[in-house]
């Protein structure tokens, strides 16, 4: 059974219908790719799936549980984590604090204003472990703001991982990365897929076709094609965009 399902999702902003009818089904343990032209509604789709916008119609289930219309923090606590297309970090904090804030163990103690810091070395260790996964352990005590662009993207993923998710939504993780950093990221995702279910939006076709088990193509707010990468190569739209005819 699919871990995460969206059926007939519709989202309008005023008169503008951005998501017409999106149906997705993400299998546990898989990497599910999403592609489509600029403005197709991919990010909006993520926003709806993770609770940022409530859908106007449709149903979203996670692990058999209906999460349609739940608030983002509730969905996050159930084990749905995400990164953002536009970077979203705690910029005034050091790297490790960014990660620590996202740890469920930290969240659990955060409600007590006078809690002492006794015993927090376990939290630090947990945070360092997460940073280690994305190769940022060395930079743990730097200011988040001072990181390079690539490292900030990695931190973005670390924050999502720290929440101990069961499914990870990544919105264009390679955006703005060089060839080397993109390769590192591909490796990271290969490692992560052993522990998490991953859904990622990607423009980089090589990257996506290498990693994804299934791909959904979104256009005009609808899933216009879906299948394994091999099968999709035959798709007219995909073939054209692979040749660079459609951005």
């Amino acid at each position, binding site marked *: 059974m699919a871990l995460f399902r969206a059926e007939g999702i519709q989202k309008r902003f005023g008169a503008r219908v951005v998501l017409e009818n999106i149906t997705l089904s993400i299998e546990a343990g898989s990497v599910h790719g999403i592609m489509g032209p600029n403005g197709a509604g991919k990010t909006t789709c993520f926003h709806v799936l*993770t609770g940022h916008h409530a859908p106007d119609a449709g149903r979203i289930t996670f692990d058999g549980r209906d999460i349609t219309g739940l608030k983002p*923090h509730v969905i996050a606590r159930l084990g749905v*984590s995400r990164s953002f297309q536009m970077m979203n970090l705690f910029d005034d904090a050091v790297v490790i604090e960014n990660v620590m804030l*996202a740890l*469920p163990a930290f969240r659990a103690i*955060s409600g007590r204003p*006078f809690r002492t810091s006794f*015993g927090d070395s376990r939290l630090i260790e947990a945070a360092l472990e997460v940073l280690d996964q994305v190769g940022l352990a060395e930079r743990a005590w730097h200011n988040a703001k001072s990181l390079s662009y690539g490292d900030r993207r990695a931190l973005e993923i670390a924050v999502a991982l720290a929440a101990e998710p069961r499914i990870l939504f990544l919105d264009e993780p390679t955006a703005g990365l060089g060839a080397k950093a993109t390769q590192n990221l591909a490796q990271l995702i290969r490692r992560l897929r052993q522990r998490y279910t991953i859904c990622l939006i990607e423009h980089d076709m090589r990257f996506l076709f290498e990693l994804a088990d299934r791909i959904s193509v979104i256009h005009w707010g609808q899933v216009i094609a879906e299948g394994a990468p091999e099968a999709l190569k035959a798709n007219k739209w995909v073939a054209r965009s692979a040749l660079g005819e459609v951005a």
Partner: protein
Amino acid sequence: MITLSDIPPRGGAGFAGPMALFVLVLATLPLWIAPIGLYEYLGIEIAIWILFAMGFNLLFGYTGLHSFGHGAYLGIGAYAFGLFQQQVMVSLWGGLFCAITAALLAGAIVGAFLSHRRGIYYALLTIAFGQVFWFCAMKLHGITGGEDGLLGIPRPDLIIGAWRVDLNDNTNFYWFVAAIAALAVLALWRIVNAPFGRVLQAIRQNETRARFVGYDVWRWKWLAFTLSAGFAGLAGGLFAMAQQSAYPDVMSLHQSGLIVMMVLIGGGLVNFWGPVLGVVLYYIARDILGGLTEAWLLWYGLLFVIMVMVRPEGVAGLFHSLKQRLPRQASVTKPEQA
């Protein structure tokens, strides 16, 4: 062992040094304030406003929620204290408890309306609610005494066991207020550096991110507002004792603006101690500039404008950047593992 406390606080503000200085100044103030030509009552006012400003900065500087109507909670505390003395019984702790509770309650109600807003809408709503409370204070003659306010509020004795202290004596009252201010500063330092305070700061930095890692941002914003209203209420109760009255002007827009100005000038946006600096500077300006010219508020206002233009991080920010020009050290070094 590395612990949470090794994660640098905001603006890298130290605590032990400044706190020692703060306590030293508070503790010795009665000895030197008269000789330098000022008066004891000023110390009382400064301590009360430090309490108000520090609590306000939990919301303003730390959580990044811009309330321009916080005078209301100062006023509610003052009225609650006065009404308790006049209608219920003469009791110091009873009055202060009532002041805090009333302000917490008002803060909780208003906070519930505010907390799903942000930015300018948040600020506008705080002003609107502030005006509602001010209007009530003016119009509910039967309870608040209208424009005149509550007069002749007693300063009840401080009773600890067999020990009885007459707070009508300004020196005694100063000690009392200074002790409360010091305790509040201590408590706030704990709060802002505990996980609790880290979450508030995270919300200031990125509300969306905080929400998507599982924080119920609404509830946190509501908590921050309510807590800071509680501090304002305590300050208001003490203010009613200081003035031995409570009147609508305490909760006017003017007071609300003043506290924002103090916190900004002092550098509350970047430093824990900013509000303390801001309050002290304001009173120094008022008493020294005020001694020289009637138009001191104009000069102070100009100072504020210049400050916002050239150094929006405030006086504490100024110290901060001076410090950074000194021999450069790595921005944050990893704490040694012991």
